[in-house]
C-alpha cells in the first residue's frame, strides 16, 4: 500500500454564520475555490496533476448544490481534467473527504488529491437539506430521532456532566483559542479571504469571545429546554428509560459556533513529492468511521478513535495531540473520559466552541490545526475525530515524517 502524504493544509478564517458575518457576502463556491487557488499557488502545482478534489458539504442544496467540489474546481480555474466530488458525513464531512482523498492515494488510484470542505451556514442555514431521518414519521419513530442539542444534553445527563463542568470546558476553549491567536498559531494554514480587488474581507476567526467567563456563561439560558418540552425529552427517555429527565446544560456559549468557512488538505504520493519537491509534512496512519446509538448520537468519537488506533496498532497513549471537534462541551468531556486522555493533550488551541464549526469544512480545518501544532511542539502523532449526526464517528491518525 502507498503512503498518503500530507503536503499542505489550508483554511479560510471562520466568519460568523449570520447575515452580519463577514463571509456572508462571499458565496460558498468562492470560499472553496479560494482554498483551491491557494493550494495551487502555495505548492506551485500544475493542476492537471491533481486527480480529484473531494469536498465535504452538509447542505448540498441551493448554491451549495450540484456538486460544489467540481464547481469549485472550475471556478478556481483548475485544469478541466480535475474531477470533483462532494461528500456528506454530516459534521465529519471535511475529515471524511480527507480520508477519501487519502484512500485514493493509498490504493494507488490517485497521485495527488485534495480533501477538504466548505459550508456557508449564513447562506445555507442548518437543516436546509431536510431529510427522512427527522421528517419521515416511520424513520423518526424507529430511530428515536431527537435533534442534536437534545442528544448533547442527554449525553451530559447520562454521564453526569453538570452545567459547571460544561461551562468550565467552554471557558478553557475560549482561553486557548485566544492565546492561540495572540501567538499567531494558525498562521501556517490560514489564508485571508479577499475580494476581486485584493481588498481584505476577513483575516481572523471572528466568532471568538475571549472575554468569556463562568459568570457570563452562567447568564445564558439553556438552548434546548423548550425543544425538549415539546416531546423530544420524552423521546430521549423512551430510549433511555433509566433517566427521569433530561438536564439541559448546553447553550450558545458551550456549543460549537455557527460559522462560514472552507478548508483543504493536499495529499499525494512520493512521486508527486519528488516532482514538486514538496515536503511531506505527515502521513496518514489510519482512519475509521463507525456507527453508534443514534439517539444519544454523539458518543461515536471514542469508538471511531479506538477503531483507527487499532488499525494503526496504537494505543491512545501513543497519541501526542488530539483534535476532538467541540460540537458540544459534553461530547469532548465524554471523549476524554472514555479514552482516558488528559485535557492538556486535547484541543490545545481551543476548538469549535470558541472558533466555530463550519459543518462540511471542520474536519479538514482541525487536521491542519493539529499538524501545525505538532510541528511547533516537534511532536509526532495526532488524532483527529468528530462526532457525527445520526450516531456516527470519524477519526484519522496522522504522523509527522
Amino acid at each position: 500500500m502507498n503512503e498518503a502524504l500530507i503536503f499542505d493544509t489550508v483554511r479560510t478564517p471562520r466568519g460568523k454564520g449570520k447575515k452580519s458575518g463577514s463571509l456572508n457576502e462571499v458565496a460558498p463556491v468562492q470560499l472553496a475555490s479560494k482554498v483551491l487557488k491557494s493550494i495551487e499557488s502555495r505548492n506551485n502545482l500544475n493542476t492537471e496533476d491533481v486527480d480529484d478534489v473531494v469536498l465535504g458539504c452538509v447542505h448540498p442544496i441551493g448554491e451549495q448544490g450540484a456538486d460544489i467540489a467540481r464547481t469549485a474546481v472550475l471556478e478556481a480555474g483548475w485544469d478541466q481534467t480535475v474531477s470533483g466530488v462532494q461528500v456528506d458525513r454530516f459534521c465529519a464531512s471535511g475529515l471524511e473527504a480527507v480520508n477519501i482523498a487519502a484512500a485514493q492515494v493509498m490504493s494507488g488510484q490517485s497521485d495527488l488529491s485534495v480533501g477538504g470542505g466548505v459550508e456557508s451556514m449564513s447562506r445555507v442555514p442548518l437543516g436546509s437539506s431536510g431529510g427522512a431521518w427527522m421528517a419521515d414519521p416511520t424513520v423518526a419513530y424507529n430511530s428515536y430521532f431527537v435533534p442534536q442539542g437534545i442528544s448533547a444534553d442527554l449525553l451530559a445527563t447520562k454521564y453526569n456532566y453538570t452545567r459547571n463542568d460544561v461551562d468550565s470546558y467552554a471557558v478553557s476553549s475560549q482561553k486557548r483559542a485566544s492565546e492561540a491567536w495572540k501567538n499567531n498559531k494558525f498562521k501556517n494554514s490560514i489564508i485571508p479571504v479577499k475580494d476581486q480587488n485584493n481588498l481584505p474581507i476577513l483575516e481572523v476567526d471572528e466568532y471568538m469571545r475571549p472575554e468569556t467567563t463562568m459568570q457570563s456563561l452562567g447568564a445564558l439560558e439553556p438552548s434546548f429546554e423548550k425543544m425538549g418540552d415539546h416531546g423530544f425529552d420524552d423521546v430521549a427517555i423512551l430510549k433511555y428509560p433509566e433517566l427521569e429527565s433530561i438536564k439541559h446544560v448546553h447553550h450558545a456559549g458551550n456549543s460549537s459556533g455557527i460559522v462560514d468557512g472552507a478548508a483543504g488538505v493536499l495529499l499525494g504520493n512520493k512521486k508527486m513529492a519528488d516532482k514538486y519537491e514538496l515536503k511531506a509534512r505527515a502521513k496518514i496512519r489510519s482512519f475509521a468511521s463507525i456507527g453508534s446509538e443514534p439517539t444519544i448520537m454523539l458518543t461515536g468519537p471514542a469508538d471511531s478513535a479506538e477503531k483507527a488506533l487499532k488499525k494503526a496498532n496504537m494505543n491512545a497513549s501513543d497519541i501526542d495531540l488530539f483534535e476532538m471537534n467541540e460540537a458540544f462541551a459534553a461530547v469532548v468531556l465524554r471523549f476524554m473520559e472514555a479514552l482516558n486522555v488528559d485535557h492538556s493533550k486535547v484541543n490545545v488551541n481551543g476548538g469549535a466552541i470558541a472558533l466555530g464549526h463550519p459543518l462540511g469544512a471542520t474536519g479538514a480545518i482541525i487536521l491542519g490545526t493539529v499538524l501545525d501544532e505538532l510541528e511547533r511542539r516537534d511532536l509526532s502523532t495526532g488524532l483527529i475525530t468528530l462526532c457525527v449526526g445520526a450516531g456516527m464517528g470519524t477519526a484519522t491518525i496522522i504522523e509527522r515524517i
Partner: protein
Amino acid sequence: MNLSNIKVINNDEGITNLVIKSKNTLINDEFINDFTESIDFIASYKNLKGVIISTEHNHYDYDYDLNFLLSLKNSELIFNTITKLTKALRKLETLGKPIVSIVSGEIKLGGLEIILHAHHRIANKSNTIFHFKNTKYSLIPSIGGSQRLPRQIGINKSVNLYLSDKVISVEEALELNLVNEVVDKNKLFNQAKEYIIKNSSSLQNWDNKKLLKSQPNPFSNENLSYFISKIASLHSTTSDHYPAVKLLISSIYEGLNTDINSGLKIEARHFTWLIQNIETKSMLETLVLKKQKKELPENIIHNFKKSFRENYAAEGVKLLLNGVSAALIENAGKRLDFEAGPLKLADTLDIQCIINQLDSTDASAASLIRSMQKINRNGLSTNKGFYDYKEGGKSNIWPGLIDLIPTAKIQPSIGEVEKRLLFSAINNIFYNYNKYSDLYNSKAVDYFAIKNIGLPIWTGGAFKWVKENGIKEFINTSNEYAKTLGSRFVLNENILKIIKSM
C-alpha cells in the same frame, strides 16, 4: 339505475343525481360494489354535464362495517376491497365534469372522505355538523381522507382534526374549507345545478397542473418543522402503542411527497396493515363491536377503579423495594399508558389504602411508607411524597428516596418492569371480576376496564389482551410471578376456567 345502496337519476339537462340510500350507513362489500357500478354507469353517460351527490336520509354518517372489514382474511383481500372503492371514487373525481356534493346532517369520517371527492361542497345551513373521531383508538382514513383533507385544508389542521374528537359546526367547516358554500335547505339543489351549469369542466386542485406547486409540501420550512416536532410529541405520548397515530401522520407525510394516485396507494397499504394489527383489532373489538348493553353499575366500577389504582401504586412501591430505580418504574408506567407512573399515582392516594394492598410478606413496603409518613412525606397533599412538587406544576422524584431504599446495581430491562406492571394490573382486574363473573361477562368487563377503570386502552381489556397475546404464556408467567412475587398473581380456578375457554 336503482341499486340497494345507491340510486342514479339522469335528468334532461345532463345532470346526474347520485343518491346514497339511507338503509345502510355501513360501508361493506355490497356498498362498494354498488358505488363502483353506479360510477361506471355515470361515466358511460354521453351527455353528462355534472353530478350531484346527496344522501336520501340527509346525513353522511358512513363508516366502515367493522364486522365486514375484520372478516377479510388476508392482506390482499383487504387491500383490494378498499382500493376498489377508492378507484371508483377517483374515477368520478377525474371525469372532468363538475361533481357537487350536497352536504347535510351529521358527517362522520367515511362520509367526509366521500364528499372530499366533490369539486364543490354545498352545505345545508340548518343541520350540517362534522364529527371527528380520534384515529388513535381506531383506524386511519382509507378512502383518500389522509390525502385529500391535507391537500384541501393543510397538513397541520388535518392532523389535528384526525387526532381529535372535534365537532365542527357548519360555520367552522366553511372557514376550514371543508365545505365551499352554506345555503338554506331549499336552495341546496338549485345551487348545485347552478355550479354545474357555470362550470363546464372541473378539476381538483391536486389534479390541476397549474396548481400543483401550491399543494402542501412536507419539506417547506413550515411543514418540515411541523413534522419534526409533531412526530416527537406523538411518539412521546403513544410510546410503542396506538399504531394508527404513526400511520396517520405517515400517510400524510408520505402521500404529500408524491401525487394523489400514489398517495392513495400509500394510505391503503397502511390501512391494510393497521386493520390486521393486534392492538388495533383488540381496541376495535372491545370499544366498537362488542360493547355490551349490560352496563356495570357505578358503584362496581368505582370499587374496581379504586382497587386497580391502589394495586398499581403498590406494585410500584414493591418494585422500588426490589431495588428497581424509581425512574425506571415511572417510565415503565408511562410507556404502558397508565394514567401516571405508579409512584406519582401513589402520591395522590390515601397512603393507608396502599398499605392495605400490601400483604404480610410486604412488611418492608409498609415500613417504607410509614417511614416516609414520619418525615411528613404524605404525598401530593403536602407537596412531598415519592416526588417533590414545585410551584408551576413541575415535579421530580424525591432525591432522598435513593437513601431510603438503595437501588440495585443491576437493573431489569424496561420491558421486564412493564410486563410486571401490566400483569399485576390484569390480575387485579381478574381478582375483582371473580366476584361478579355470574352477573357480567368478560367482554363487558374488558370494555369498562379500558373505558373507566384505567387499564391502558391499547390492551383492549384484560381478557382480550390475554387472549390475543397467548393464554398459555399468561398462565405460566402469572404462576412464575405468584411463586416469586406473591399471591396477587395467583389465578383462581374460576378465572382460569374463563380464560382457558376464550
